[in-house]
Each structure stands twice: as C-alpha cells, then as structure tokens.
C-alpha cells in the first residue's frame, strides 16, 4: 500500500505569486526540494541533449490519438 503521509491540513490561503517564486520562508520541504534541484542543475549539462535547437527541431511526430 502507498505510504501514508500525515500532513496537516494547511489553511486554505491563496498566494497568487507562489508558483512564480521560491518557496515561502520556513517551508522546509520547499527548501529541501530547491536544494535537490540545485544539485541536479550542477550536473545537468552532462545529460542534456548537446544541440538543443537541433533536438527540438528534429523531434517531429505523426499525430496519434
């Protein structure tokens, strides 16, 4: 069975900027994710397709369903 998360229901306040900006201060999980993304960014250029423009242009699919 899936792991159960015991997360507290947070107050339903809406922050319109929250997607565009970094995690609110004090958000531990947000900071952890940001740190992990930062680590990935340090090494990501090694796995990225070498010529981004060619790669994007040449990825052409026949339409499907």
């Amino acid at each position, binding site marked *: 069975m899936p792991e159960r998360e015991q997360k507290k229901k947070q107050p339903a306040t809406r922050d319109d900027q929250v997607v565009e900006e970094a995690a609110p201060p004090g958000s531990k999980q947000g900071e952890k994710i940001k740190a992990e993304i930062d680590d990935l*960014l340090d090494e990501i250029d090694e796995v990225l397709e070498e010529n*981004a423009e060619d790669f994007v242009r040449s990825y052409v699919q026949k339409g499907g369903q």
Partner: protein
Amino acid sequence: MAIRKVCGIETEYGIALRGVGESNPIAASSLLINAYVAEQQRKVGWDFEDESPGRDARGFAREGSMAPEVETHLVNAVLTNGARYYVDHAHPEFSTPECADALECVRYDKAGERILARSMEAARRTLPEGQGIVVYKNNSDRKGNSYGTHENYLMDRAVPFGRIVRHVMPHFVTRQIYTGAGKVGSEAASAQDVPFQLSQRADFFEEEVGLETTLKRPIVNTRDEPHADAQKYRRFHVIVGDSNLCEVATYLKVGVTAIVLAMIEDDFFGDVDLSLATPVQAIRRVSYDLDLSLPLELADGRRLTALDVQWELLDLARKYAEDRGLECVDDEVGRDVLRRWEDTLTTLESNPMSLSGKLDWVTKHELLDAYRQRHGLDWDDHKIAAMDLQYHDVRPERSLFSRLPSERLVDEAAVELAITEPPEGTRAYFRGKCLQKWASSIVAANWDSLVFDLGTDPLRRVPMMEPLRGTAKHVDTLLQGSTTPGELLEQLGT
C-alpha cells in the same frame, strides 16, 4: 452499488530513430516492439473479431465521417502480464492489463515504462552501430502533433450516457491541476503569452463530446467498445489525460476519476450540477492559469475556480464514501485516494511548489524555472524546450524526471514483477497465465477471448466476457490442474 471500476491506461509513446537521416516511425515502432518480444517470448497475434472503434456510445451509428482505423497489419503483441503492446498511429502503444484498482494501475503503468526502456535496449542490439531508438512518454512534439494517453473504466451499461457527460465534464476540465504533465509554450493558434501551462493535451481539445480521437478531439469521448458483455457493461474511454511520470499524479488521475464515475453510476450527484458554460474554452483557461486563480463560468451562472470545482467534487465524494462505501474502487485504495486528493488540493492552494515529485507539472516547472533563472534564459529558449522534451525521455540515464526525487507508491520489486506477471484480480490473470504456459498453442488473444489451436480440432475460442472472472481465485486450481491446453479446455467445457 456501482460495479467494480476495473481500469486501465493506454499510452502512445513518442518515438525517434537516432543516427539516420529519414526515419519511418511505423517501421521504428515495429522494430522496437519486435526486438522486445523476440527477446521475451513467442509472439501471439491479436484477434480483431470484436474490435469496433467506430461504434458510438450515444447509441447511433456514425455517418459521413471516416471510421477510425484498426491497423490490423501492424505489429501487435500480447504479453504474459496480460498487457497489449502494439503499433498504433505510428507510435508504440502500451495498454496495461485490466487492473482492479488505481494503485494496481500505477504499478502496470510503471511496468510499461520499464518495458519500453528494455525495448530500446533490445532494439539497440539489432541496429547498426550509432543508431538507436528513443521513446518519450509525453503527448506532443511541440509542433501541433499530439498522441494520446487514454484511460478506461468499467461501467454499468444501464447508466444513461448523458448523465456521464454532464457530471464528468467539469471533472475533466479541472482535474488538470493535478494530472497535468506541464508544457512549455502553447500549440493552440489562439493562445497568447503562454510561457508554461499545466497540460500537454489541453491545446488539442476542440469539441465537448464526440467519437473522434485524432482530430477535433472531444473532452468526453464516446467510443463504445465494451470488450466485455455489451448488454451489461460499458468501457468508458477517456482521451483527455496527459501521460504522467509521477506515480502520485497517475494514482490521483485514475483513483479520483474512478470515484467520480462510481458516483455518477449510483446517481449520487442529486442537485449538485457543476456543468460549465463553455468547457472547451475552460479547459485551456485552466491549463494556462498557473496561479490556479481564474474563475470559470458555470451553466447556472456561478463562477468557480478549478480548485473550487475539485473541492466540491471531493466534498461529494466524502459523503459518498460515508453513505455507500468505496468497495467498487477497493475500500483501502479509495480512502487513501480521498486523503491524498484533499492533501493535494490543500497544498495546491498554499504551497504548490512542495508538490514537486508528486505532480508532473510542478516537478517540471520547478526544474525548468530553476535552470532558466540560473542561466538567465527566457521561457522560449531552445534549451528550455529541449528540457521539456527530455523530462519525458524513457531512458533512465537521460530522463530528467528520473534524476529528480519523486514519491513512490509501488516499490520497484513489485514493478519488476508486473513486467511479466498479470494482475491477480481480473481476467488478465487468465490471459497472462495461459500465455505463460501455452503460448505456442494460442493463435490469437484479445481483451475478451483467447483462441487455441490444439493441432487437430478446429480452432477453439475461449470467451472472456466478464472482466472480473478468470482471476487467480477463480482459475488457479484449474490452471495448475491442467498440464496441456487440451486438458484446460476440457475442464472449461468449451
């Protein structure tokens, strides 16, 4: 009480042949699947007798438009896990076996990714040095060409189709806030200033209801192929979803939709009517609204956000669980889906970024945005578009998704098992086990039948019109007691 929501996911993968100038996607897809099948097992042909993709669930025959193709001449394999792996519309497609609940669906959807990854390895061994096939689990080439990830759910035939349409439409328009796989830019002609959107597919929906799947795509698809007793069952076919890599997103997509359909089947909506004034416009509005704050106009004049609509559905689902129970989606899984659904909506309102690793659109957005900011790039930079594609690369060493932490709901050993073993709680068990034991005597397999060639008699067809018969509980003794397919058929009395 609603009937068991037996479910499945059908994924068309994007495909590219590397190391050659021109490539034919149908040939590449065939090569990919053949390479896997040759390494894994003897190939079993698919039996098309009961395929009728042109039949319409609204009860009338098609007129004046072209019937969807069934490409009978193309590669088509049935695997020992009960899945179908074949070439469809110039894409390799993996259809999970019939699953008994959403969690099982997650496991077989993941097994599909592993099978595609192994297929690429197998294909590489047959191709000249420097060539290779790469597949992507996404839904668009960013140039206006889309390919689908479909879901299917077993429903009672007696439910009026109009009732399904009325209540499932607002769910399909708004569930993108957790099912969306994220996309940089837009492929809709009318779209302006869309740096990033929630969904891969929203750009491609032009109708509310219809039979098409490849053009003028409808939000609610009416394809009526029950692949089971047509008097009793409908197999509700969903084409509006994105392909997900996050297990939590797949789990919510299938789990919540199964509960919504159960509520429709039990006519539990009562006075609750969330019908939208203009669903086709609304599906894009939701997809383009990263703040999840824009209101949608309802048919009755109310204005609700996508989140509001999902909260209303969740409230109703909680009452449904209390009144009727959730046995039809597996009680334990159903209750877990309700908890996660609530957690997800709450977090989407307060701190969506923390859903990275749970929802694909958030995971992708956070990665791309961080890269963009570090290197001072705009959203329309080629590098960002390339990363959007590479997020979905199925090769573990190249997949950007795989490099990020994500929450697992099924452990890798269970996924590994699902590559070759069928689910135990549906007729897929009978199909898969017969293929494991007697592949050389099975000349054709379909969702609802197996055809045996015993060498002497005419071909013998075993119908499987009940998706919940042929389970491990039903047939294990029978299968273990039969050493030859002839003995099996004798005991079955066919």
